[in-house]
């Protein structure tokens, strides 16, 4: 069995219900995403009815570099459900998950695997591997929406920083504990966040994002300001309560692949 041996990590994404409302735009987006890595992809319509519009999907995306064409004008792809995802043993046997930068072995005639489709709110770990070449797949084989979601995730996840080191975690724990200890009785948020420890957490940079999300999930506190500063996003902009803001940030963290259930 021939295999590809190296893959480029592209990333993760999560679908929301809104993605299912405009399939055509997805196709265009997918073409654009693919063209950024390959060139001038040709994306056809798909059997959309197969796709059940669950609220969230996400996938880790690996892309084969060894078969990446440099001058290809057309990208053919095929996405099939990888059967082993739900079963940890089978998943392990198949080589999933692999550390970033390493590609699990796959049959050479495979266009792509898409794994990790799951229901709303759950952790979705998926892999899409797209070596090129061979016969053009049948359109009916293409689960375009899944492929779109994962390819889009790839682009979004390129911005994701590396995972925190144990030293990062220890530093964060110390600073977070100090901040909570010193500001527990402060009723003015804008003053509490000026505490030195909170500012030092922000100064850790984006590496603190997953740590802040974990803290927000496990020991809810006012970490949203630091998250918005570090990510330059505000998924909780429409929230009117702490709980709504917390839920929005955790959803964002899950979509970006920072945290799971």
């Amino acid at each position, binding site marked *: 069995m021939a295999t590809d041996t190296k893959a480029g990590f592209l990333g993760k994404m999560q679908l929301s219900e809104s993605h299912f409302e405009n399939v055509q735009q997805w196709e265009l987006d997918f073409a654009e995403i693919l063209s950024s890595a390959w060139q001038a992809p040709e994306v056809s319509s798909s059997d959309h009815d197969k796709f059940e519009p669950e609220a969230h999907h996400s996938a880790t995306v690996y892309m084969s570099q060894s078969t990446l064409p440099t001058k290809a004008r057309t990208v053919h792809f095929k996405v099939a459900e990888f059967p082993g995802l739900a079963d940890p043993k089978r998943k392990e046997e198949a080589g999933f998950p692999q550390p970033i930068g390493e590609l699990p072995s796959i049959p050479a005639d495979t266009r792509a695997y898409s794994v990790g489709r799951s229901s709303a709110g759950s952790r979705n770990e998926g892999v899409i591997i797209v070596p090129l070449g061979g016969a053009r797949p049948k359109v009916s084989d293409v689960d375009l929406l899944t492929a779109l979601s994962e390819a889009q995730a790839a682009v979004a996840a390129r911005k994701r920083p590396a995972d925190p080191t144990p030293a990062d975690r220890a530093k964060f724990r110390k600073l977070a504990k100090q901040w909570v200890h010193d500001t*527990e009785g402060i009723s*003015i948020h804008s003053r509490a966040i000026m505490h030195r420890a909170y500012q030092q957490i922000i100064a850790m940079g984006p590496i603190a994002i997953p740590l802040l999300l974990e803290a927000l999930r496990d020991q809810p506190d006012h970490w949203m300001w630091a998250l918005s500063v570090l990510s330059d996003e505000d998924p*909780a902009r429409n929230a009117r309560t702490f709980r709504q803001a917390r839920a929005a940030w955790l959803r964002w963290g899950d979509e970006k692949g920072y945290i799971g259930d």
Partner: protein
Amino acid sequence: MTDEDGIATARRLIRSLDGSTWDPKSSRNPAYNCFAWAARESNFWVEPPGTAPWACWPRDLPEWDTVENYVRAYSKLGFEECENGTMEPDTEKIAIFADGDGAPMHAARQLPSGRWTSKFGKGIDFEHDLDTLDGDPAVGTVVCYMRRPDPGPPPPPPAGLIVVDEIKEPDCVFD
């Protein structure tokens, strides 16, 4: 943080509680603050939303955390300034605390018993005598009293933070 931690934190930071009679009533809950609890609210964090866009604040008020603006905010809930914290029939009173620079720090609400209830930052609620807190560095000094017609029996102390992914909550109390 456990309830015991919350009580210990209040004891540690509000030194005037030592030797006084005070009664912890709720668990720690970062979803609401003293300014919300003074208005009987436990779903909201009341503060100008500069760094906390999710905070509850009257849309037509300046986003500055001054005593004057808190007075204006409470006015929207039927409060008006009054002279003191003495019990009056069919009246609910609140007290606004400020630091030495006049910046708001805390608010407390009078209970039908004559005692007062306070939410301590992100921490616990507790009942206390007003004199106990007045002047403590952790909460400041009372700089303003307000009152409104008694809206009825006060709400019980809320439970701790309820953590779920999707929450349908009422609009901001000022909306």
